[in-house]
């Protein structure tokens, strides 16, 4: 009768950092606070972005690196022909190809969004990314804590970091152990 495998061999999940309970976690430090943004709706749009903006967020320019987003729908620019739309209310769209020349992919569960605010925001973010935030960039995509992310602000002292959902635990753990 062979020996049973050690527990750590049977369950590799114990090697990984435990995912936070996104419904309740908050980090509170002297100069900044971090919390996940819950209930955010997301669509990934590729193709003719002008046509897509006309449909989802008329007269709203796409948001680049460190730019301040305004309005109820945030069209966050990923690349030349791709953006992530986020909104507190559901975004009505038919998934797939749109005749106006863009494709829509539901992405609500594909990302985790972490919001950081406070007077220490700028100093903290300068530790998280090499990007020159004052230089400006039409794309909000950059490396944050070494991971691909979208970085922008919603007001002067509040930033949002959107990372692919599996990376959310890592970025949160980075903030916890900073």
């Amino acid at each position, binding site marked *: 009768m062979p020996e049973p495998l050690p527990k750590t061999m049977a369950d590799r999940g114990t090697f990984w950092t435990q995912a936070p309970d996104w419904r309740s976690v908050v980090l509170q430090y002297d100069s900044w606070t971090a919390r996940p943004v819950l209930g955010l709706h997301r669509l990934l749009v590729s193709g003719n972005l002008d046509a897509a903006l006309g449909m989802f967020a008329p007269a709203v320019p796409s948001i680049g690196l460190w730019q301040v987003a305004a309005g109820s729908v945030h069209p966050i620019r990923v690349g*030349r022909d791709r953006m992530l739309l986020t909104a507190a209310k559901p975004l009505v769209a038919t998934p797939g190809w749109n005749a106006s020349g863009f494709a829509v992919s539901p992405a609500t569960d594909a990302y985790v969004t972490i919001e950081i605010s406070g007077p220490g925001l700028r100093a903290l973010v300068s530790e998280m990314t*090499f990007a020159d935030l004052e230089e400006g960039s*039409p*794309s909000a995509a950059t490396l944050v804590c070494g991971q691909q992310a979208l970085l922008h602000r919603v007001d002067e002292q509040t930033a949002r970091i959107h990372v692919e959902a599996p990376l959310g635990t890592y970025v949160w753990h980075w903030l916890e152990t900073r």
Partner: protein
Amino acid sequence: MQLFSCPFCGPRDETEFLFAAEAGKVRPEPAPEVSAADWSKYLHRVSNPRGATREIWVHQTCGEYFLMERNTVSHVVANTQPLRGGEA
């Protein structure tokens, strides 16, 4: 640390970029008539010049593939330009 300039995003840290290919390499066609030696040469042989070179790079965070002209000795980047509408 070195800055590369993505044609779309502007200057970004080198860690955001990856080398993709030598510029000007043409896939041998038609495939059924390409010898194993020519196919291997296309896939694995790179000229790796000392000095000025033209390469295809990708900006990982935004997904832009672009042409970069740089010097492999001085590391000076002479030019970057998008691949759309041009030949590389």
